[in-house]
């Protein structure tokens, strides 16, 4: 698992704490010699012991809901506070809620509620419900924060209720009822969408949906009303009431649906101009290139619904399929769920404005580039969107790809191609260098050309390149 490092040098040599791991005094993540560990502090001892001894840990791990860990005997990062050090199972890729499709966020929400229901049965409760504590591993959402549980005290309300509404219910209801692109608010607000904002942006008819009326609209009003007041937090409710609250949140989440334009999926994606033989040939070439370089991980940039990403993941390669279109990513995710796909992670990403470093000290959530490099990049039918629609010079595109991947499978789409003609139809052609020669020359500064093949029935070419060491 990769994560941003806290650059402050207050640890022994070789040990770095992680930039996102500072809020909870229960413990924190650190790396030692490149391996990720979690220190469990003495303050969390009672809770950790209950998690492990009550059977809750075994139940959640067996159900695939919690990332497994091993207790290890290494020097803690802060020995004075340490109770134990654990080594969580390695995750291949860290993604964030603002990169997920609607159903990914919905599944993450339902997973959080399911974990809370199980935890209550074992005498524990989630003390936070951050969407960032969920990651997709082998196609399924899993809780990665082992220290999220606290011993449940009878009568205590769910402390993470507000966070759940901000991290899950608010963005999902905005996506379902207002506009799917409002998920990007998660990128602006690090602790989830403020409920007063969600309440203002949701249509009035959502006041007729009981879970949204209660947990968004009334919740926002209550926050406003009590904003500057001190309340008696010793008043509490019993376990059944907490279970009822969780059940009602689940009903609310399950009741949220989204399809693009409110249409059925059907043949939503058929927008390419290959002949059947050309498409098959391109697929075969992508497969051959991947066989040649044998990558463990692939990022497919501009993956659409993941047609060519499948060529990679069918070979057991862990494949992250990025696309700018939330509908394409949603379709890809739903297809992956249906197939039980374990090697593919579809994500929403605008390559012209990729995920930045955000949060406290700009170190809580990693930029795309910080999560690089990957073994191999695929950039199929993408270059014209970057170079022409977004005016990125080819040399800068080569530099960008050079940062992201060790190998590059890239398709060049010439100006004569109907898709490029379409992009140029309404604008002046200010791209004299956008030619095969210009492309090869720009990329030769950063990559070594390994193989190039024309794609049957088209004027496009598929290149295999290896990045040069600078």
């Amino acid at each position, binding site marked *: 698992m990769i994560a941003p490092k806290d650059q402050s040098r207050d640890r022994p040599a070789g040990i770095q704490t992680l930039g996102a791991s500072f809020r909870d005094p229960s413990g924190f993540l650190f790396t030692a010699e490149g391996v990720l560990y979690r220190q469990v502090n003495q303050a969390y001892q009672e809770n950790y012991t209950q998690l492990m001894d009550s059977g809750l840990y075994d139940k959640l791990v067996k159900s695939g809901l919690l990332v497994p860990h091993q207790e290890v005997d290494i020097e803690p990062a802060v020995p004075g506070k340490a109770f134990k050090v654990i080594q969580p199972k390695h995750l291949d890729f860290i993604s964030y809620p603002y990169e997920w499709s609607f159903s990914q966020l919905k599944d993450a929400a339902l997973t959080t509620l399911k974990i809370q229901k199980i935890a209550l049965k074992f005498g524990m409760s989630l003390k936070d419900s951050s969407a960032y504590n969920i990651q997709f591993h082998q196609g399924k959402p899993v809780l990665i924060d082992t220290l999220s549980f606290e011993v449940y005290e009878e*009568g205590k309300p769910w402390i993470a209720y507000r966070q759940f509404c901000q991290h899950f219910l608010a963005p999902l209801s905005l996506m379902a009822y207002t506009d799917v692109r409002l998920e990007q608010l998660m990128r602006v607000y690090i602790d989830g969408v403020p409920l007063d904002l969600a309440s203002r942006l949701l249509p009035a008819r959502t006041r007729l949906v009981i879970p949204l009326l209660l947990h968004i609209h009334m919740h926002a009003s209550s926050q406003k009303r009590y904003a500057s007041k001190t*309340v008696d937090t*010793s008043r509490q409710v019993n376990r059944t009431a*907490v279970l009822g609250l969780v059940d009602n949140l689940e009903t609310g989440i399950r009741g949220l649906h989204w399809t693009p334009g409110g249409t059925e999926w059907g043949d939503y994606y058929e927008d390419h101009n290959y002949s059947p033989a050309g498409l098959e040939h391109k697929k075969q070439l992508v497969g051959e290139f991947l066989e040649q370089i044998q990558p463990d991980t692939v990022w497919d940039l501009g993956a659409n619904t993941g047609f060519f990403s499948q060529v990679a993941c069918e070979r057991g390669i862990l494949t992250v399929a990025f696309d700018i279109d939330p509908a394409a990513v949603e379709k890809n995710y739903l297809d992956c769920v249906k197939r039980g796909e374990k090697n593919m992670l579809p994500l929403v990403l605008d390559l012209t404005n990729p995920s930045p470093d955000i949060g406290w000290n700009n170190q809580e959530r990693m930029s795309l580039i910080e999560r690089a490099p990957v073994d191999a990049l695929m950039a199929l039918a993408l270059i014209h969107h970057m170079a022409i629609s977004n005016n990125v010079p080819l040399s800068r595109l080569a530099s960008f790809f050079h940062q992201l991947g060790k190998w590059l499978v890239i398709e060049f789409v010439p100006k004569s191609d109907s898709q490029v003609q379409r992009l140029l139809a309404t604008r002046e052609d200010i791209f004299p260098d956008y030619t095969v020669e210009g492309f090869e020359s720009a990329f030769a500064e950063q990559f070594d050309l390994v193989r190039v093949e024309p794609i049957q029935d088209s004027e496009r070419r598929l290149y295999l390149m290896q990045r040069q060491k600078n």
Partner: protein
Amino acid sequence: MNILTSLATILIYPLKNGHAYLDPGSGSFILQLLIASLVGGFFIVKTYWKKILAFFRGQPSEAEDDQAE
């Protein structure tokens, strides 16, 4: 625990404080007390209704949750 006992104990009652690191927020805290008490009652009715349905269908009453897990 029968329905009446459950409904009775769902009423808000004073207890000691916790020690979580998240601030539950004053407005969120008050609202949760209200909503939890309200939907908690429905939850009990719903749970018993499911048990009754399960009984008549000849299914084990705990089946639903465990299937989902």
